[in-house]
């Protein structure tokens, strides 16, 4: 099976390490974590992920700013971004079928199953 590369950008170290552990244990993902959002663009350029899981509220540089940098970079602009955030509820996400303003959103906390479904659908529309 072709291993998909996932970049997680989130300042919550406990959360990112748990998520990395879960995704890697499935055996279908190669995962890299960035806890300081200012390094997100640089890491993405080196790692060239298939999908980026991006937190919204982070110190220094917020998720939407990171998303703009990625969209403006010719080598990264087509990489799907899944916003992973505690600022919205699962109901709000589900009422929009997971898509808000052309981006996929996953509310924290969501089950691993829901997150995997979002990762797969974002890669599918790439």
């Amino acid at each position: 099976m072709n291993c998909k590369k996932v970049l997680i950008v989130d300042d919550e170290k406990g959360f990112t390490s748990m998520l990395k552990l879960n995704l890697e244990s499935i055996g279908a993902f190669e995962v890299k974590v960035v806890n300081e959002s200012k390094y997100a663009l640089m890491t993405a350029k080196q790692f060239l992920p298939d999908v980026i899981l991006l937190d919204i509220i982070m110190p220094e540089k917020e998720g939407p700013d990171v998303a703009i940098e990625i969209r403006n970079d010719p080598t990264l602009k087509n990489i799907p971004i899944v916003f992973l955030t505690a600022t919205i509820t699962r109901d709000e996400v589900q009422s929009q079928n997971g898509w808000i303003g052309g981006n996929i959103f996953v509310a924290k906390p969501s089950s691993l199953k829901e997150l995997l479904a979002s990762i797969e659908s974002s890669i599918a529309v790439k």
Partner: protein
Amino acid sequence: MLKEEKMSKKIKKDYSRPLDVIVVEDNQVDARILESMLLDPPTIAKTLKIANTLSSAIKILEENEIEIAILDLNLPDSKGIDTIVEISKKFPKLTIVINTGAYEDELGLEALSLGAQDFLLKGKYNAYVLNKILRYCLERKRLEIELKQAYETLKDTQSQLIESEKMKVVGGLASGVAHEVKNPLATILYGVTYLIEQVKMDDDKYNLVLNNIKEATNRANGIITDLLDFASLNKMNRTKSNIVDVIEKSLSLVHYQISKNVIDIVKDYEVDLPLLMIDVNRIEQVFVNIFLNAIFSMEKNGKIGIRIHSSFIFDNKQALPSAAKDKFNPEQKLIIVEIDDVGKGIPENEISRIFDPFYTSRRGSGGVGLGLSVSKNIIENHGGSIVVENKADCGVIAKLIFIV
């Protein structure tokens, strides 16, 4: 015409208007004197009723449109201050002028504080003075009523303001807390998921502990989500929708609890109901909340009745909160949804608190007390109202009023 001239003309006109008067006096001579002052030209009264006891005065006041009472305090069936208390309690809009043979300063002041407008001393006034006093008293009473109404409105507005400020504080706090708490919850959830999925242990207790942690995490997330609802109530996404579809969807969301508790659902839906501009998800949330409250209030084999009908009037205006009383005028078509159960009802001393944030009767079994409070806010943000009452026999009825 100048404003002042207009005003003086209006006062003049009012000043000569014949009055509807009752004289409450057991002394026939005194009554006769007042009668001639009021009826002899220039006539002061167009209606004059005379009563010689308090009980007969009350009967006359109940049956006639009387605006002013000239009241002797010592009657065969009532003495002194009690006479004013009784009359002003029963007829708060009536202007009362005391007519007495013996003036005492303290009695006079007390009479005024209890609702009388002035104090006449028998034999010390003539028709001219009486006329002037009655007119002034009427005007003072009118101003007093206006002032009382303004005070009531002010009190209502103040409590609404306090309520909305409270909501703002809870809302602001909720969104801040929600973000901070949801991140660690997500960490716990993925940690537990990893242990459940990847670390296989034969010990049943290990799995029990993990599943308990997972369930507790999900419950904590549910509580945070309820809190977030406070913060995001203004974000409405309204579409033209059929209320029946929304209720049916809400019922399907609580299907598990309904079948588990063997609840009978009795539906009475009016056909061809007009569509409503509502945020479907929010209104679903309200109905799910009301259904769950009904289910949890009943033993097994209970019954929930759902009646939906349209109307131009809400027949139980008294039950509405004061701010909502004037909201529904007879030209507005309403859709009224009534949901009733046969549960244990709400203790009468708690019924006024059910919409307060954090009020719950299920604290021990996981209730946070935000459901009804959020529901009320959602319905009011749609311009509607919600009333919850105990039924005469048993159980509770929730009435939700939507403006079409």
